[in-house]
């Protein structure tokens, strides 16, 4: 994966496959120490302790088209290579939360990438899932919640092209601000 926005897209696909109806994505700058933290939390089917203990192993997957799963191991490796940490918690029937941090000034720290495109891609493919995206920096907090957008849209689907275009530009504006 070239950047963190692609990792976030990938990890969120796991949440979707686990049947999540609510997915919260947070990207947070932590000034002391110099870390960037991303987290993806869902209310999907979750995992039992046995699967959870093996899930960072690349030879574990729930998919049946191939017998290996690289998404979580790749994220863990990227975090640890940059001096950050990786943590996953999960409970059957409740959901899963993944938190990964990256040393921002570390030479192996991946760039954030196009987070607007990741959020728009998720909404395009899953207009009935609620996504909340939050970005916290020293300048402030920005958040976007598709539940609030759906209330404004009153039945117009979130994945109508014009709506997606608005969301993209809204996110890009916010990114320039904070």
């Amino acid at each position, binding site marked *: *994966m070239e950047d963190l926005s*692609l990792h976030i*897209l*990938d990890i969120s*696909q796991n949440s979707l*496959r686990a049947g999540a109806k609510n997915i919260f994505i947070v990207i947070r700058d932590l000034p002391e120490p110099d870390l960037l933290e991303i987290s993806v939390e869902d209310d999907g089917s979750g995992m039992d302790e046995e699967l959870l203990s093996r899930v960072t192993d690349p030879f574990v997957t729930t*998919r049946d*088209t*191939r017998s290996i*799963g*690289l*998404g979580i191991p*790749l994220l863990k490796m990227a975090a640890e290579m940059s001096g950050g940490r990786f943590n996953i918690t999960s409970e059957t029937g409740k959901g899963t939360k993944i938190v990964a941090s990256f040393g921002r000034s570390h030479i192996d720290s991946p760039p954030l990438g196009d987070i607007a*495109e*990741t959020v*728009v*891609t998720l909404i*395009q*493919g899953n207009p009935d899932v609620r996504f909340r995206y939050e970005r916290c920096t020293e300048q402030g907090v920005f958040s976007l919640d598709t539940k609030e*957008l759906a209330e*404004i*849209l*009153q*039945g*117009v*689907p979130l994945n*109508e*092209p*014009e*709506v*997606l*275009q*608005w969301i993209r*530009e*809204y996110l890009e*504006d916010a990114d320039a601000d904070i």
Partner: protein
Amino acid sequence: MKKSIEELNAIRERMQQNIQVRTENADNTRVVVGMATCGIAAGARPVLTAIVDEVNRRKLKNVTVTQTGCIGVCRLEPIVEIYEPGKEKVTYVNMDENKARQVVSEHLVNQRVVDEYTIGAAK
């Protein structure tokens, strides 16, 4: 100009007046992009963005763009499948943004399969 919530209200009003909101039905052509780890790492996200953009720009009706997980041939990702009613599925492999735009104009608009990008032509 900054995007505002008021603009989203305006989009809603425009859409609600427009009866021709895209409907899902059996006559629709489905374009499916593989969006699992293998696809994403190989560049599926910009491929999807290009297809959505091109379908929208050309105002193609009866085309729905969706996403799926791993299609099973990871080394040929990004993969795009096109399902048209009454026709055999066409699988495009090793896609990129430009090829994706070309497939929309040739396959979806001009009804000509772009043979050189199909799985049959892949080594």
